[in-house]
Structures are given as structure tokens and as C-alpha cells.
């Protein structure tokens, strides 16, 4: 008969690192957990009929690999494929995968259906039998936001169900710290014995220093030196990552600006009125002394704004672009031009003229007097209808 007693261990640094991953994200995060599984037979009680064996199984979480986005190693229905896990693992071995984790805010310490499905599929794919699912659920503890809580636990599949396993955070405090002896025993004979005097040099260096103390101190110093070196490399790499992220941001912005610029060049803005260059040239050619015909701008009352006359020479080649005008000019120059010129000098004439032109699509009829001008206009229209 076997009893399974499983504990999960994680160092404080690995746990903080997991929290760090989630704190830098607005959404849920997930990833793979690497480590090793150590089984130990703890107790064996044998009686005549049954062997009672107690197995102590320790799962050591050593590190985690954060996924950059959700659903990176499983599909929308929870199917896990090895091809998807491989790139996440990169250089790490698949045997070292001992589980996976998920962090979600303001939720319960309970596996969701999807998580259960993914976990079962993970168990099928990965060699490790006792795969662990680690769930971290941070939440706010007070309304003011002054206090926050993080809950965490591990789940494994055992005996056809998910059982909750506590996570033990290994730390300095759970290792027995021995106390120094401040006083010696009361017998001077011990210190002055021949045996002690003879073997003394095996323990003490010249002077009073203990060899053991010197050895462990230098090993520890070297370890701290090694840590310092790695720390410097990490610092360099952090700055390199930061710089690249900045560069990417700048590049994305530049690309966005460029594509926006191209877009605006392609589609002309509809509210910007474009000048009908042909019409302007035609009017200038036909009515060179009627400046009111050169403006596209009207006041609110519908009167042409002479100050905004078009003064640019559009260099339109009249004979090729507007041949019909020349024909018209030719005929008109004989009879209508002088009278029109005279009419132009009358104040208000131009206004009525413009209004007539502009309101040709409305039902509004010109209610003003000056019928002779209207006749003139109609006369013109009857003879020629230039097309542009």
C-alpha cells in the first residue's frame, strides 16, 4: 500500500519573479514551470500481511518561462501540441517541464474548465507524470486600494481528481540556525588535554583562526563575486532590451506616420473645394472684364466676394481644352459683349448675376427687377451651352 505525500517547493526569488511577470501585465498571464521531481521512500512499515510504504514526493520549482501571450501552447479548445511548446522551451529540456502556471486577477482559487482540459492534454504530451498546475490569484483586499492580497496554490491530478497541494516557500528561516556557544564547559582539563593539544593544528591555522571558517568564507566570497558578475551581465541585458523596445516603438510610430501621409495623399480631402480650373479660364476668356465671375467664394447672403478673386493664370490652352469657347467668343464679340460690359458696371448687377448662376438648381426664382439683364443671360444660354 502506497501513500503519496506530495509537496511543492519554491524559493522566495522564484515566487517574486512570478509575481513580477503578472504585475507588468494588465491581462492574465501564463507560462511553463521547470524544475525537478524528487521522490523519497520515507517510511516502510512491514507487518505480516501488508507493507506500508510512505513516499515523500517533492516537486521543486526552479524557474518559470513566461509566455508572451495567452494561448501560445494550446488552441482555443485546449489542445496542446508539442510543436507549440518547443519554441517556448527553446534551449531547455522537455523533461524539466514539471508544470505550468496561470495568473488571473480577482478570481477564485479554483481551476476553470479550460484549465482542466489544458492540464489533461499537457499530461498526455509531457513525460512527467505528476504535472503541476500553479494558480496565482491577486486581488484587492481593501476598497481604498491600500492593501492587496495574492493567493497561490498548486493542483495535481491524482486518483481521478484534482487535489490542492500547498506550496512551501523555502527560505532561510526554515533552516535551523545554530547558536554559538558563549561559554565553555567548566572543565579546564579538556582544553589542556594532550589529545586536544596534539590535534589542534588540524583545526586551527597559524594564530587563532579556524581553517574551516577560512575555507567557507573564501568559498562564500567567491560565490558572491560570481553573483556580482552575473548581476552586471543582467543589468547590461536589461538595458539592451529596453533600448530595443524603444527602437521598436520609434519605428512603429515612423511607419504609422508614413502610411498616414500616403493615405492623405491618395485621397483628396472632400471638404477642401478644388478650383475648377477650366471653368475659371473659360470665364476669364469669355468675360475678361467681369471680376465677379472669378471668385468661388460667396457671402452668407449669396453675394460674390470680389476680394477673393482668382488671380492665377492657369495656363490652360484654350484652343485645345476649350475649343467651343473660341467659337462662342467669336460670335458674341460681335453683339453682346459691349452691352454686357456696360451692365457690369452697374452696382448690384454682378450680385444678381451670380445668384442666378448659383441657384439654377433650386426652385427659387429671381424676384428682382432688371428684366433686361435676365433676357441678356437667357439669350446667351440659348445660343451656346459650353460643356466642360
Amino acid at each position, binding site marked *: 500500500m502506497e501513500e503519496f505525500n506530495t509537496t511543492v517547493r519554491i*524559493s*522566495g*526569488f522564484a*515566487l*517574486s*519573479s512570478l*509575481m*513580477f511577470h503578472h*504585475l*507588468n501585465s494588465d491581462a492574465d498571464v501564463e507560462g511553463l514551470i521547470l524544475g525537478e521531481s524528487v521522490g523519497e521512500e520515507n517510511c516502510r512499515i512491514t507487518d505480516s500481511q501488508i507493507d506500508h510504504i510512505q513516499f515523500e514526493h517533492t516537486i521543486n520549482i526552479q524557474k518559470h518561462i*513566461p509566455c508572451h501571450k495567452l494561448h501560445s501552447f494550446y488552441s482555443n479548445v485546449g489542445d496542446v501540441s508539442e510543436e507549440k511548446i518547443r519554441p517556448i522551451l*527553446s534551449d531547455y529540456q522537455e523533461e524539466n517541464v514539471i508544470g505550468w502556471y496561470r495568473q488571473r486577477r480577482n478570481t477564485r482559487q479554483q481551476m476553470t474548465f479550460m484549465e482542466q482540459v489544458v492540464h489533461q492534454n499537457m499530461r498526455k504530451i509531457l513525460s512527467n507524470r505528476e504535472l503541476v498546475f500553479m494558480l496565482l490569484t491577486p486581488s484587492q*483586499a481593501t476598497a*481604498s*486600494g*491600500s*492593501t*492587496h*492580497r*495574492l493567493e497561490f*496554490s498548486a493542483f495535481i491530478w491524482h486518483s481521478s481528481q484534482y487535489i*490542492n497541494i500547498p506550496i512551501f*516557500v523555502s*527560505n*532561510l*528561516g526554515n*533552516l535551523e*540556525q*545554530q*547558536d*554559538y*556557544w558563549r561559554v565553555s*564547559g567548566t572543565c*579546564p582539563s*579538556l*582544553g589542556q588535554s594532550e589529545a*586536544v593539544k596534539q590535534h589542534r593544528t588540524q*583545526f586551527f591555522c597559524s594564530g587563532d583562526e579556524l581553517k*574551516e*571558517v577560512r575555507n*567557507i*568564507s573564501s568559498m*562564500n566570497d567567491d*560565490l*558572491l563575486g560570481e553573483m*556580482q558578475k*552575473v*548581476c552586471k551581465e*543582467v*543589468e547590461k*541585458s*536589461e538595458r*539592451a*532590451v*529596453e533600448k*530595443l*523596445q524603444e527602437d*521598436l516603438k520609434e519605428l512603429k510610430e515612423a*511607419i504609422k506616420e508614413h*502610411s498616414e501621409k500616403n493615405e492623405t495623399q491618395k485621397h483628396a480631402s472632400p471638404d477642401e473645394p478644388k478650383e475648377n480650373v477650366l471653368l475659371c479660364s473659360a470665364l476669364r476668356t469669355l468675360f475678361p472684364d467681369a471680376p465677379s465671375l472669378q471668385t468661388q467664394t460667396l457671402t452668407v447672403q449669396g453675394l460674390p466676394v470680389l476680394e477673393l478673386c482668382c488671380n492665377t493664370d492657369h495656363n490652360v490652352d484654350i484652343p485645345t481644352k476649350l475649343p467651343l469657347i473660341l467659337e462662342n467668343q467669336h460670335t458674341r464679340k460681335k453683339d453682346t459683349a459691349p452691352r454686357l460690359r456696360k451692365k457690369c458696371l452697374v452696382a448690384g448687377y454682378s450680385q444678381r448675376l451670380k445668384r442666378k448662376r448659383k441657384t439654377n438648381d433650386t426652385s427659387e426664382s429671381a424676384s428682382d427687377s432688371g428684366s433686361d439683364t435676365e433676357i441678356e443671360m437667357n439669350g446667351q444660354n440659348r445660343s451656346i451651352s459650353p460643356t466642360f
Partner: protein
Amino acid sequence: GSAVHAVHLESDAFLVCMNHALSTEKEEVMGLCIGEVDTNRIVHIHSVIILRRSDKRKDRVEISPEQLSAASTEAEISFELADMTGRPMRVVGWYHSHPHITVWPSHVDVRTQAMYQMMDQGFVGLIFSCFIEDKNTKTGRVLYTCFQSVQAQKGSEYERIEIPIHVVPHEAIGKVCLESAVELPRILCQEEQDTYRRIHSLTHLDPITKIHNGSVFTKNLCSQMSAISGPLLQWLEDRLELNKHSIIKLQKEKERLTQELASL
């Protein structure tokens, strides 16, 4: 009202605090918060400094305002507290841990905080509660809170007031934070060496006692290496690995975008 509107704790500073708080369940640990206060009375904490405790009491942790002031000055001088923007940083608060006990500050904590506030109105206190487990659900728990102290009336007891705290994302770990993180094993080693030297200098100890104490020193240092230095080194190497992969990915992306920009 309080002099502080809210606290913004950068996530890499949080990481160092959490590392420190989780380093031992046997005693409370403490440190200083480094940062600046803006015009909206928001305290920005950019990094932390682990403090050595000369008087190690298992149940209490606090240092007198004079000691705090001295530690702050020393910190501001000896550490490069100016952040990447070149703005000078200063000590803006303190943090300590509550292993196995509630996150709320004790009466002593509240009084200590009040004393610190006499030197600096905007001084804030953080507490990290760890090694708590719900026996029924087998769920582990970590809590953190931010507070200041206030006196209802002159002469009455000090009470805590809640200060909202937000952990602000900071994906890349800052230089000062990294340096603070690796200070922990060095501080522990120094503490142990100081304790050992004081004992070893006692003249009345016989050789057997000295040998015993030497092995105690060895044992304690091994515990530190096993529980602190080892996992910390592990984390550093893993972080380096992670960054190397990120750099490769980001480099590829940068090349792709550079080409895309050139083609436009």
C-alpha cells in the same frame, strides 16, 4: 487629510521588497524606500535599500528616527540614487515584513511610523505579510499594505490611515534595484561574520568550544548559500537567459520593421 495622496511602487522595486520579505520566516526584515514625491502628493518609489539591523530582535523591527536619518543620509551618499532621468532621489518611506502574522501594523509600528512622519510628513510605511497559509484550502497567501499614522487629537493614541498603493509596471529591472537585490546575501554574510568575530574574540573559550563555533559559522553560511545565494544566482542566470532570447526576438522584429520603413 494626509500629506500623501497615493503611492506608486515600481514593479522592479516591488520585486526587491518581495525577495527580501520572503528571505526568512523567522524574523522581520526591514528596508528603506527610495524615490520622489510629485506635486500631486503622489509618492513614487523607484527602488529600495535593504537595511542591516544591528539589534536583531525576533519579534520587532524598527530603528530610531535618528538611526533612520543616519541610514538615509548614508544611503543617499553611498548609492547612486539618481535614476535614468538624472533626477535626484531620496528616502521616502520604509518597509518591513510580517512573517506569519497579519499585514496590519502593530501599535509599535504605528508609533514608529508617527515618529518618522515628524521628520518628514510625506514618509510612508509599507508592510509585507508572508508565510501565511490557509490550512483548509491549502492556499498560500502574501499581502502588502501602505499606511501612515495620524493622531485623532493631541495626546491621543496614534492610529493608522490607509494610503492607496499601486504597483506600476516596469518591465525592465533598473540598475539600482538589481544592485539592491544582490546586497541581501552580502548583508547576511557580514552579519554572520560580525557575530562570529565577536564570539571568537572571547578569550575564555577553550579549543573545543572554538571548533564548535567554527562549525556553527560554517553551517550558518551554508544555510545562507543554500537558501539565499543559490536561488538568487539561479534567478539571475534565468533572467539573463530570458533577456538573451528577448534580444534575439526584438532584434529580428527591428530588422523587419526597418525594412518595412525603408520600403515606404
